[in-house]
């Protein structure tokens, strides 16, 4: 999952301090893997260097966690591009897709569109595998079937999430 894009997305609703960003991330996406402060500052300084965020103010008391960051226009464009680009279908995408859906809801973008884009990407690969399976021998068929069942599981998750967007939006406070 892209921590940079996620932190950027969290900044879209307004400037935040480093510690506040970490808390928001852990609260929404950290679950079993909270961020280290080190990760936050490494990521923020990279975003700063690339012009995707700017320092909006520094609280008294120094320390990197006291810096307040604001997203730039380039940063907003970067988030939009990330959300609109489907993920390459591969196993264990859920945490990335979940993050994208929640960020889309939080930033007022069309989460249904995002899910449809991803759905189209998955189905495209399923079509290619199905075509390969039809021409292949038994070994090809079994290998393709394995991939197909995994893609199908992802698609079912996408469908279920699409059906629950309203409830999810409320749950994450969008």
């Amino acid at each position, binding site marked *: 999952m892209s921590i940079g894009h996620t932190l950027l997305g969290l900044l879209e609703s307004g400037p935040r301090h480093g510690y506040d960003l970490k808390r928001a991330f852990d609260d929404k996406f950290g679950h079993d893997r909270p961020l280290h402060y080190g990760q936050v500052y490494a990521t923020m300084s990279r975003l700063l260097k690339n012009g995707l965020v700017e320092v909006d103010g520094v609280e008294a008391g120094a320390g990197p966690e006291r810096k307040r960051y604001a997203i730039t226009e380039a940063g907003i464009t970067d988030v939009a591009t990330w959300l609109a680009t489907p993920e390459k279908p591969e196993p264990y995408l859920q945490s990335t897709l979940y993050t994208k859906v929640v960020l889309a809801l939080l930033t007022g973008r069309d989460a249904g569109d995002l899910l449809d884009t991803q759905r189209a990407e998955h189905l495209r690969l399923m*079509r290619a595998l199905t075509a390969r399976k039809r021409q292949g021998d038994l070994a090809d068929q079994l290998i393709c079937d394995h991939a197909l069942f995994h893609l*199908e599981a992802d698609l079912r998750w996408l469908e279920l999430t699409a059906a629950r967007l309203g409830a999810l939006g409320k749950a994450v406070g969008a």
Partner: protein
Amino acid sequence: MSAPFPEAPATAPAPAGSLLAASGLHKTYGQTTALDGADFSIHAGEVVAVMGPSGSGKSTLLHCLAGIVRPDSGSLTYQGAEIAGLPDQRLSALRRTEFGFVFQFGQLVPELTCVENVALPLRLNGVRRKAAEAAAASWLERLEVDDVRDHRPGEVSGGQGQRVAVARALVTAPRVLFADEPTGALDSLNGERVMELLTEAARAAGTAVVLVTHENRVAAYSDREIVVRDGRCRDMERYA
């Protein structure tokens, strides 16, 4: 044409070259809006999967496209000609000669044997028994169920019954095959084999297929998919 369509909306013309096209289809049942401005088009020989949540309007769309249900408003063209307002008799003739149908359950005539069931549409179109049954037998063979040709539908498995139903739908060489959950009652291996046989036969004959399914593995046999949500169609090509 004006009677059932008092206020035909100004709709975009169907995409060039489409065999069957609908635009702005509306259909309500009492308080329920089943179709809310659905657009759809299919080219000759194309296999299009129609997906979407339960109750979204997939079957209603298929029934409207096939002329089984009349939409409240909207336009429907077949080979470039408006057909939504055709009288019942002309519509049913169109269905008999140009369209084929496969549904999830219960479409075979229980009193007839499998080969007689498959021959039936040809017989209704005036083909003699011997010729009709010979054609039917070759379709049964193609769908790998010639061994049950003399069984009645009550004496075959669900998977065999669906293959017989596919044979019956394709025996008249229709231009469009409408299939609503054709593998819905089958296990995944059987369901896939039926899809494989169905799409192979349709492609070989140049038959277009409108395939309603909620199974992605089945949809993966199509060339293209659309998703129905709240009575409207989303063309997934848009996201490609």
